[in-house]
């Protein structure tokens, strides 16, 4: 199962790879990382249909924001689930994300237990 993380902070890759070390090792998860909205869209477009089932995206990024990316993905690949991960856990961002079709909203610092449960639910649902 392929999951895409989008964040302008490059260290996110190390953090998530280490956090999901066991799951990656066991082959349950395959992680990919993009460091901007555009990069994420390019990655998704490179495969037809994309193998990604879930995208977790930061909101505050230079260039395309996470919320814009959310709308793009939802219009182009409605089958892909998208959740937001943001330091700005305010009502406005939350409402906008939810009305644009986001599945979940995680605030930074990320609660990895919750994140793992979310991913596990996806795996078992498949």
């Amino acid at each position, binding site marked *: 199962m392929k999951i895409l993380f989008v964040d302008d*902070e490059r260290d996110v890759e190390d953090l998530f790879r280490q956090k999901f070390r066991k799951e990656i090792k066991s082959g349950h998860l395959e992680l990919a990382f993009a460091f901007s909205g555009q990069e994420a869209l390019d990655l998704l477009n490179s495969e037809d249909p994309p193998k990604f089932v879930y995208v977790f995206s930061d909101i505050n990024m230079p260039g395309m924001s996470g919320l814009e990316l959310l709308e793009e993905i939802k219009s182009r690949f409605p089958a892909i689930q998208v959740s937001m991960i943001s*330091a700005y856990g305010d009502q406005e961002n939350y409402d906008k994300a939810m009305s644009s079709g986001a599945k979940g909203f995680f605030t930074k*610092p990320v609660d990895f237990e919750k994140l793992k449960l979310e991913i596990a639910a996806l795996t078992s649902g498949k």
Partner: protein
Amino acid sequence: MILINLISLSLLYYLKKSSGAQEFPERLHRYFKYGMIAAGVLIALGISNAPPEILFELLSFVLVGAVIYLMLNTPELVYLKTLAITPLPIVGVKLLEYLVRTISPAIFEIVENYLDAAGVFAFIWAVTMWLNHRKQMKEIEIERIITKEQERQLRQTEEQKSQLELLVAERTSEILSQKEELQHALDHLRATQEQLIQQEKLASLGQLTAGIAHEIKNPLNFVNNFSELSADFLHEISEEMPKIPDSPEKENILDLLENIKSNLAKIRHHGSRADSIVRSMLMHSRGGTGTMDPTDLNALIREYSNLAFHGMRANPNPINVDIQLSLDENLPKIKLNSEDFSRVILNLVKNAFDAMREKLSAKNPEYKAKVEIRTRDLGDKVLIEVEDNGPGVPDQIRDKLLMPFFTTKKGTEGTGLGLSITHDIIKSHEGTLEIKSEEGKFTCFSILLPKSTE
């Protein structure tokens, strides 16, 4: 002899009459009266030619002499001197005539013509003196009128002066009170200006802190996440280690790993400290999200003071505190953002605990820590007071107390934002926060909330 007495009578009559303008003492009036009676009697006797004529004539001279003497020697009558000497020559001639006639009628016949002539001169003299006297009297009268007028003017001037003085005093006091009012207004203005500057600073600081907080939050999250992750890995390593045979190198590695573990714990601890500051800062600057609902303030106070107490007891350095609630049970429900306002109660009670802990650690065996929380219905407002018997707040830092990042707490305790946030929340409820304190005795935080914020 009638002439002499007529002179006496007219002199006395004149004196009596002129006493109208100038007040003579009672004694003189009596003299005038008796003198006039005596003159009248003598005139009557003179007309009737009753004997002994010589004696009466003598008495007439005595009387006129006495009247003239009185006029010349009485201080009150000195101004009539001219009048007094007016009849003197006539009296003198008459006296001479009388003496000569009495002593030797023969000589009298010889000198009678001369005496008559002398009488004429005396009469001319008298008329002259009389005119003189009239002139003098007129001058005196004019002088008197002038003096009177001057006095009147002086009185008037004085009256005007005192009126002016009164007016000046009135105006002065008016000006003084106006000055006082102005001073008051100025002081008020200065205080308001200071407040405005403070608020302006706070507002820009709020925006700045929000920005800083967000910028710091991301790297801080990495610090915390990676340290947590590393701790997890260390845990895994320590699970793997027993599988490796013992050796001095392994011993050294285990030692180092132990150090790394404790270092990571420190990184984690300080990271979460920074995180709680950042979170407070964000909460500080965020616009109120919760809604204002009618709230049972007393219940909220009971719940959160209790929470603060148990939180304090569960944390390091618990203290024994007597919490007294004197809540006004008739308090109506107040429109509050209860999520925000509960932080106010928590912060103030926690703040009191921290202050009293300081006093307790100062080794005072008699000291018993006590917090009193009061509510009172003040009509259109509600008063909430949180008072502790801690060390108090020195005057010079009292107004700094509400500034962000100002803290008296040592080392790692406190973010310096608690009271600042508390103040902001109260302000967002359109309330006021006042701090009363006496060093070494107490600190009292008084909150005034309007009952209805429409």
